[in-house]
């Protein structure tokens, strides 16, 4: 027997707005639809409702009751992301989830009794999970989508409808719970039909002959029969959060404050699905019109909000949008976090997730190309190097002995090379360097020198290099590598032996 749970968020436009702006929960807030004279209330907070604000009231009427009523228009971006969040909550319970829109999702919970003591426990767990995502949800479980939805819409959630007892459950409820078409509802009211049970008691053929196919479907629904199957939705390729702003933002800090909350929600959603963010895309809606889009690649998949926010800050500081911002959306492209099997006997392996977060934070602190794995490069010029993403191999299964040192003299490369003046002299039939004049320690008479060694590189390219290298030891201490770059006569120090 199929069991379907319906997750339902009452007053969804309001719930979506409060998820993005939780501070408004205690205020007298109304969500309005329509413009100017047509603006009317579609949902309101408890504080506003207790003062008499009800859906359908015009904004002018509502303001006459509460002059300081906060009115917010419907925010499609907020609603879309709240729907995504509800969908993802449902996905943590079952992979078969149907998105019915407007704060409703259906979940196939058949076979879940192995994970929960009862369906009531399952429903309560779902309510708690939705609350963690900032959504107040109700849950109903039944054998059909229709009965589950009606059960979820009722107060005192969760409500579980036993299998085969759908018609008994629906019978005492008012007919409006089946949301019939207006014409059919008017006709049925004229017949004196007020409850679902009264409609179910009528002969099906008589209802169908008078109300047509619509009447037959309504009669089926009244008997708790819902032939519509659950149509699962595939997993979305990315995670999106965003909102439209009440007024344009011109400074970075207020925007980052809002973006921080959005990133926090993104991180929670990705964590729920076991994903981490590999790439972040920001789209800003600008005033008076136009959009500004930025893509930020993360050095490693991470869910660390601080890291993502720092990278966002750095990117926007470097590339400001150039106009006031009236809305934004953040899209996180997910990737599986790196996993590793830790060893019992070998050196401790680094936690891949911790490493990814650290590298991302280091990149945000120091900038790109300043953190990574050094790579040797084929060539002849000594200053050559390359840097790549740091992805260490797993440590050996058992601890190895260290390699015996070759006791080699190391070189400190000076990047960029330091320009110096060099005085040469002839001695014993050879050219030798007599002294160096440069900044700081790079100055003084030379005790010993050897060279030159000629290095030619890239003679076939546009930037050939021809240099003559010398090793020099200063009287005051310090051994340096100097070179003269042909065809000029300039001298440089490019390394110090240390």
């Amino acid at each position, binding site marked *: 027997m199929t069991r379907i749970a319906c997750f339902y968020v009452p007053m969804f436009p309001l719930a979506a707005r409060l998820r993005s702006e939780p501070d408004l929960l205690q205020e007298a807030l109304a969500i309005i639809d329509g413009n100017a004279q047509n603006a009317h209330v579609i949902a309101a907070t408890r504080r506003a409702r207790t003062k008499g604000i009800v859906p359908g009231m015009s904004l002018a009427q509502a303001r006459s009751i509460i002059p300081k009523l906060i009115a917010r228009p419907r925010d499609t971006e907020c609603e879309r992301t709240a729907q995504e969040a509800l969908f993802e909550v449902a996905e943590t319970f079952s992979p078969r989830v149907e998105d019915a829109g407007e704060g409703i999702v259906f979940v196939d919970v058949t076979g879940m009794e192995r994970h929960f003591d009862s369906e009531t426990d399952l429903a309560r767990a779902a309510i708690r999970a939705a609350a963690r995502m900032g959504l107040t949800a109700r849950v109903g479980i039944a054998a059909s989508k229709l009965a589950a939805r009606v059960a979820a819409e009722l107060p005192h959630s969760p409500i579980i409808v036993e299998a085969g007892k759908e018609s008994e459950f629906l019978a005492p409820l008012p007919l409006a719970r089946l949301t019939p078409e207006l014409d059919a509802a008017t006709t049925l009211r004229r017949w004196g039909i007020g409850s679902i049970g009264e409609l179910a008691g009528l002969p099906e053929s008589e209802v169908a002959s008078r109300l047509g196919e619509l009447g037959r479907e309504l009669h089926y629904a009244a008997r708790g029969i819902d032939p519509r199957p659950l149509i699962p939705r595939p997993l979305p390729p990315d995670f999106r959060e965003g909102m439209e702003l009440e007024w344009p933002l011109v400074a970075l800090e207020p925007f980052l404050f809002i973006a921080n909350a959005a990133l926090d929600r993104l991180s929670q959603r990705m964590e729920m699905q076991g994903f981490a963010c590999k790439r972040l895309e920001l789209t800003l809606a600008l005033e008076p019109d136009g959009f500004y889009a930025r893509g930020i690649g993360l050095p490693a998949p991470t869910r660390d909000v601080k890291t993502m926010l720092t990278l966002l800050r750095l990117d926007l500081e470097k590339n400001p949008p150039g106009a006031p911002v009236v809305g934004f959306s953040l899209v996180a492209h997910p990737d599986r976090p790196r996993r590793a099997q830790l060893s019992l006997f*070998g*050196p*401790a*392996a*680094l*936690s891949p997730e*911790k*490493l990814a977060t*650290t590298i991302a934070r280091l990149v945000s*602190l*120091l900038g790109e190309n*300043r*953190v990574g*794995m*050094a*790579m*040797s490069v084929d060539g*002849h*010029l*000594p200053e*050559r*190097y*390359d840097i790549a993403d740091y992805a*260490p*191999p797993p*440590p*050996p299964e058992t*601890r190895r*002995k*260290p*390699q*015996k*040192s*070759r*006791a*080699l*003299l*190391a*070189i*400190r*490369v*000076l*990047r960029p090379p330091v320009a110096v003046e060099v005085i040469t002299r002839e001695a*014993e*039939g*050879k050219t030798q360097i007599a002294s160096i004049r440069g900044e*700081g*320690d790079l100055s003084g008479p030379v005790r*010993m020198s*050897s060279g030159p060694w000629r*290095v030619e590189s890239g003679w076939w390219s546009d930037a050939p290099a021809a240099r003559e290298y010398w*090793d020099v*030891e200063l009287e*005051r*201490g*310090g*051994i340096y590598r100097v070179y003269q770059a042909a065809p000029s006569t300039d001298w440089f120090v490019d390394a*110090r*032996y*240390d």
Partner: protein
Amino acid sequence: MRELRAALGPSIAAKVRSGAELLRSAANSGQTSIIPTTLEPIDALLGGGLQRGKLVELVSRFASGRFSIVLSTLAAATTMGEAAALIDLGDHFDPQLAEENGVDLRRLLWVRPRSVKEAVMSAEMITATGFQLVVVDVGLHPLRGRRAPEAAWVRLARTAESHGTAMLVSSPYPLTGTACEAVLKGTIARASWIGRGKAPRLLEGIDMNVTLEKHRHLKPGSSTSVTLRFVDAS
């Protein structure tokens, strides 16, 4: 535990150990608690090498093989399969030479900060990630950026201690103050050359002198010398 051993035969009782005894024996074995520099005289000065969880400072203003000790330690750690990081404030690292020295570049995280403050922050982040060896090389005199307060080094030393990371700070003059476990000081090293008169002259290497200036558990004042050979890795 005594009762258990008494109940067992002597051959089996000798093999039964409590968890605390196992931990003590692992700590006393010294094999896992030290990362050697693999330069024997230096290791002898430090009582075997760099203690995990401790900060050792290597100080020398003039050319004295300071960077050679750094590379040798990195080579030792990475060939053992440990994760190592080099915070290279002066941007002096040469991958070709490091590979020649035996450093496994795949296990080495190379970080190039621009100031001492960035270097200390990076070192703290990396240590907290679980790297087994973190080397902070602050480059040549004068230092880029201002000095970090001593409290920052104390905090870094505590982070190293709590994560069991061996930390080596290589600097032209003392930086870490009371935070370090040991201080090694290098003196001016003289180069040795081969080839006299009209014969071509070649740099052969340097003789490095290092003194143990401070150690919390060993008697300071002892000195040693190490010969480092020149190799053309270009």
